[in-house]
């Protein structure tokens, strides 16, 4: 990954220095676009979310306390932006439940070789609820309690959604590879 972002740059960004902001943007844009792309249905949405996310980041930079890593802080803002975008647009086109008794027999070996592209393709096929939960829990590493808070659902719902989402993921992945 690119070189770590030093505190001086962040201070300049807080002052409103456009050059510093551009520098920060250049250093983080690919990573953040990845975040947006994972949550959003299509690249256009991801672009919108990213733009709004950066505006919010620069607007709220004062609130960043130099305790953690700036990337992690930004990532959280972007995740929230993406979730808001989902909530506004409500692209829930496919909420039909898959069979819970879906028999799960998959070989770990095949999953090990999955590429980023394949993951993205599979995620795109998933229903938005599954996709969001999988993103938040597996990739972002939030706990069920945090997810429940973010999505305003019960913790139990989050758990069951995750279990179903995993199954759905495997199912979709099989479809893609076969």
């Amino acid at each position, binding site marked *: *990954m690119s070189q770590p972002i030093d505190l001086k740059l962040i201070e300049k960004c807080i002052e*409103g220095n*456009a050059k510093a*902001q*551009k520098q920060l*943007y250049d250093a983080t*844009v*690919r*990573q*953040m*676009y*990845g975040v947006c*792309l*994972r949550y959003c249905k299509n*690249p256009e949405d991801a*672009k919108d979310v*990213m*733009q*709004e996310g*950066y*505006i*919010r980041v*620069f*607007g*709220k930079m*004062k*609130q960043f306390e130099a305790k953690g890593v700036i990337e992690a802080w930004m990532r959280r803002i972007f995740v929230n932006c993406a979730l*808001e975008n989902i*909530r*506004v647009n*409500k692209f*829930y*086109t496919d*909420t039909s439940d898959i069979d819970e008794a879906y028999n799960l027999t998959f070989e*770990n070996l095949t*999953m*090990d070789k*999955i*590429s*980023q592209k394949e*993951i993205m393709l599979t995620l795109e096929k998933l229903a938005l*609820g599954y996709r969001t939960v*999988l993103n938040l*829990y*597996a*990739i972002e*590493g939030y706990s069920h309690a945090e997810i429940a808070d973010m*999505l*305003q*659902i*019960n913790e139990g*719902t989050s758990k069951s959604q995750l*279990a179903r989402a*995993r199954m759905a*993921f*495997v199912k979709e992945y099989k479809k893609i590879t076969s």
Partner: protein
Amino acid sequence: MNNLDKILKEKMSDFAPDAPNVWAGIEQGVQANQVVHAAKMGKTLFGSKLVLTIAKIVAIALVPTAIISYNYFTTDTDKTNIEKPIQEVVANQEQIALSENDFVDNEQLTKHRERESNKKMDKESNIPFSKKALKKEQRSTGVDNSTSIKDNVPSTIPHAVEKKVSHEVISSAVKYEKPISSPKENNTKQSNFFDENESTEENKEVKGEQNKGIDILIKMPTVFSPDNDGVNDKYVVLIEGEKFYNLKIYTMQEELLFESNDKLNFWDGINPKNGQICNSGTYVGVLVYKSAEDVNLRTKRAIIKLVR
């Protein structure tokens, strides 16, 4: 199954695809943010300074006369009655002419005043200064010297009037205290300025706390064109999995045009009451609905543009 999580996390941790260039949009947004911020700060500063100067004028003009009349015209019984308002006046205003101090031989009063003025000074030092307000203040202080002299001359004003006056001072002093805190409030509001999009508005409309869970699918279009060209001829609300559905469409004059409890009963741009074709313009759609999980009804609004 946790295996899958691990695989996903490992694979996606360095997921950094080529991003489209949106810097121009971001720059614009950030600039707009700053401009709005600056404009709001300027306005509030100006407003607070204006009120402050007015309060100062009133205070400097009226407090000495109030004190004079208090000393000249009050009997012992009256003093106990009027002491309170005057204390408040003095406490709220640090801008009292110092020459008048001798009239009030009250230790508590002076101590209280000192404390208050210290607090005020601290507060005031936090407020950045604006040039306009400074000029205004200078002008106004020039004027108010003369007015205070004028006011001082007729010291034969009955104290009943002075009572009223002192109350006015209190009310104006209260007015001038409020704006001091306003810049801070505005700061916090300002930071959320760009966050206030539709989603927060919609969240507010959810009545009661019992509704939990992600909202069901709803898409209320904001435009439709009933011109019989086969495209968007009817106003269709996309909704899925609802238990209750009620759509009302109003004109901008708040007249009810159309109401339906059936989601397949679309509005076609015709007033069902008199059969007239509605003109192009803006209409308001209000959707009341309820999903299977909801306890209470939810409401959603949309501004609908009718284009022919």
